[in-house]
């Protein structure tokens, strides 16, 4: 199978992809580079201890000045997933529903491809987009040792992988909703709402008892909320949960796409 539709879709999103990669690279490098200035700042830790719920809301838990705490609070608990989701949810909503609304899907849907093959190419594109931001962030982390920032590298690889999968999953959710409804707006709305709810659940889980009990319902928990950066939990469990969710969503998207009337 050729990947012409995937390449076409990536080409049309090239500017946004490059922009997001440059943006997160600049931000991640800055976070790495300024770490020495905060590493000994006890007042930062005091802040999370004094107001743990508010801090948790912004993804900060535990020590902020430890390597893992610093990276989690400034990158993995918020900005990296956020920018990765911006790419994948946007593409997921646009890849079927958006292209159907603007009329370009009619051209690719009349190429000699089955709908399954076409959707598979959209899934591959989503994967490429999902990898971009976490991978660039990881590359910036490699500069860490030069700035006294020496994370648990196995944990860094793990959180990179799980963040990719998180972005892929939520992109697939948007893709599936878009294929089921043919509406880019509904796909964006539902996927964004699910992402926001998932973020809140995962962020508040460490600080709010009631939310802690349902933390497993959030894909954020399996990606960045379960101590992945420090290797606190079994990685295979997180990967299995996120891959399983992705496969289910992809199957749902495929079923919906096969039933969709393409304009």
């Amino acid at each position, binding site marked *: 199978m*050729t990947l*012409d539709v995937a390449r076409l879709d990536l*080409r049309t999103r090239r500017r946004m992809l490059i922009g997001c990669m440059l943006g997160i690279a600049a931000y991640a490098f800055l976070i790495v580079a300024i770490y020495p200035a905060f590493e000994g700042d006890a007042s930062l830790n005091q802040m999370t201890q004094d107001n743990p719920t508010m801090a948790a809301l912004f993804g900060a838990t535990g020590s902020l000045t430890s390597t893992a705490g610093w990276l989690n609070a400034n990158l993995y608990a918020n900005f990296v997933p956020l920018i990765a989701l911006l790419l994948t949810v946007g593409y997921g909503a646009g890849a079927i529903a958006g292209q159907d609304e603007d009329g*370009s899907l*009619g051209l690719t849907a009349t190429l*000699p*491809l089955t709908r399954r093959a076409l959707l598979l190419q959209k899934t591959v594109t989503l994967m490429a987009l999902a990898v971009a931001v976490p991978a660039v962030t990881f590359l910036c982390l490699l500069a860490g040792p030069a700035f006294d920032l020496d994370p648990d590298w196995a944990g860094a690889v793990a959180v990179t992988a799980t963040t990719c999968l998180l972005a892929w999953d939520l992109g697939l959710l948007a893709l599936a909703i878009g294929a089921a409804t043919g509406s880019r707006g509904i796909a964006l709305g539902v996927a964004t709402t699910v992402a926001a709810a998932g973020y809140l659940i995962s962020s508040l889980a460490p600080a709010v008892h009631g939310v802690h009990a349902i933390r497993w319902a959030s894909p954020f928990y399996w990606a960045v909320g379960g101590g992945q950066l420090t290797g606190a939990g079994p990685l295979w469990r997180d990967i299995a949960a996120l891959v399983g969710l992705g496969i289910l969503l992809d199957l749902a998207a495929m079923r919906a796409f096969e039933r969709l*009337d393409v304009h």
Partner: protein
Amino acid sequence: MVRTGAVTATGNPEPAVRLTHLTKSFGPRRGIRGVDLEVNPHQVFGFLGPNGAGKSTTIRLMLGLYHPTSGTRQVLGLDPVRDHAELMRRVGYLPGELTLFGRLTGQEILDRFAHARAMTDLSTRRDLAQRFGAELDRPVRTLSKGNRQKIGLLLAFQHRPELLVLDEPTSGLDPLLQDEFAQLLEEVVAAGSTVFLSSHDLAEVQRVVHQLAIIREGQIVAADSVEGLRARAPRVIELLFPARPNPATYAALPGTELRATDSRRLVLAVTGPVTPVLAAAAKDGAEDIVARPADLDELFLTFYADKESSHDA
């Protein structure tokens, strides 16, 4: 697999397209209802109707883009959904509302689609690009509608498909290019292709089509060869009298419709024998007569007029 040149057990060529009682409902007054169509191979089939009549819906059903509410369809002997990939290898499609990828150049789009079709021979595309003067080096979003349409035509024709499905293909093309396009259709049909051409403009298609069907409000209201339809089309007869005639006398004649009247003149659309009109005109002492040959426009306008009157009712 049945090729367009295949012959049935009765010796008739297998239709390139066969739609049977095809229905697609979007609501009480939208979609198509019970469409039956057969398109002969190696011909240009004109599919006519006013905007919103159901032309694009029928085309999308033919191509497996839409799922029918009921009925069956077979295109080049294949099921458009089950055999979608195989069918699309043999079909070229130009959508009615062509949307290309705005940031890409025509060349990039054509190359990508050619690669997806595993094309190695790009000579047809090169020839057509030159023939239509297509601008392929600029981003599509900077091109005029006509220039975008040329790229759409190249996408449809570049792989030399057995069946071309063209939805309002000359939209945006200037008159010279419309002539060039008509000539291209003759060439591809002579080379063995079949063309399904939809339009709301009869003048555009009547010089190139062999068969045609007219769709109105989702239903086929006429389907025949051009000659067959021409035989059914009304002739326009204009009569000049020495004094004001009684229009009701003429309107009551069989197959006669009053088109216009003034103090001494009557314009009639006549379908069928003209003898009753001539007899009545002779009785009223007609001074002059002008008769135009049967024109498909008149037939087409009759369907439009029916639509208007049904709306009025």
